[in-house]
């Protein structure tokens, strides 16, 4: 039963999220709003129920698997990607690397400065 209860809570939050995005025409997917709803719920409730943790952490442990079906969808875009292959590959690799470097470095610096201030 706990797995069923936990899964029901997750699906209920997703459902509410879908209602909110559809209802207000937000450009954000329902599950992301569902995540916000669940977080608010947990903050009010004050702890994570065991059943929810069982279902949620079970799903998160296999998060990588869940991307495989969408990834196979690349098969439908071979032709489009082929036309602009080199610009796409070059842009993706360099831009992703730059984004990682800028964000990581900046956050590390901000974090270090904050820690120093806390120590003083």
């Amino acid at each position: 039963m706990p797995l069923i209860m936990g899964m029901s809570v997750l699906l209920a939050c997703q459902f509410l999220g879908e209602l909110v995005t559809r209802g207000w025409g937000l450009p954000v997917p329902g599950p992301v709003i569902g995540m916000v709803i669940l977080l608010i719920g947990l903050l009010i409730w004050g702890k994570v129920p065991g059943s929810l943790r069982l279902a949620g952490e079970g799903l998160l442990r296999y998060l990588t698997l869940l991307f495989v079906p969408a990834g196979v969808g690349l098969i439908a875009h071979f032709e489009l990607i082929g036309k602009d292959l080199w610009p796409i590959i070059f842009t993706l690799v360099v831009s992703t690397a730059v984004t990682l470097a800028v964000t990581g470095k900046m956050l590390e610096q901000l974090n270090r400065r904050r820690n120093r201030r806390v120590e003083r």
Partner: protein
Amino acid sequence: MNIAAFDQLWVYLSGNPLLSLLITLVAFAAAVRINRALGGSSLFHPVTLSVAMLIGLLLLVDMDYATYFEGAQFIHFLLGPATVALAIPLYDHREKVRQLLWPLLLACIVGIITAVGSTLGLAALMGAKPETLLSLAPRSVTSPIAMGVAEQIGGIPSLAAGLVLLTGSIGCVVAPWIFRVLKVRDPAVQGFTLGLAAHGFGTAHAFARIGAVAGAFSGLAMGLTGLLTAFLLPLLVRLVGMG
């Protein structure tokens, strides 16, 4: 059993969701094993590996994506509740999130501007077509958001979804190397950076390779980047005079 009977059996099985569900799970399990045998290198990430194997297999047996997806959708569907479940690690680490809130917001905005700016700049320099360019722009956010944004600014939604997935796997490959060079060691920072640059792939990678703290921050970054990009990107594109 003769050849004709086998043919009939294949017609039955390939039209049945059971087969694609089974091959997806088997391919992933095999990919995890292969990845472990190769020393856990992120160059052969289980997702990249299993996607490559499955694409090869579909081409080999001449099965189209719609037929495959009929079975695989049961796995795909779980992405929704899994995204909702990201609230759990976020709640567990709420103290750390609260302490870092402003640096995180600032890093998120700078990260999005870097991602979109460098993408549009580089692709334009390399001579990519306008619709490719606009489909590339939202590539660092999770695919459902990227598809909506691409449509809004004049790109091709389905191409955007494909580019999002490529970005995710590239991000997981280059991230460990970048973190080493720049000496970024804090798991919270690593996780957040991965979630920002490589959305769900980065988050899954952070959970599997770095730990629960990194995973929580990665999920936070993914959600935050998705939300902010949905609002910022149309403005940015208009700013550089493309929209």
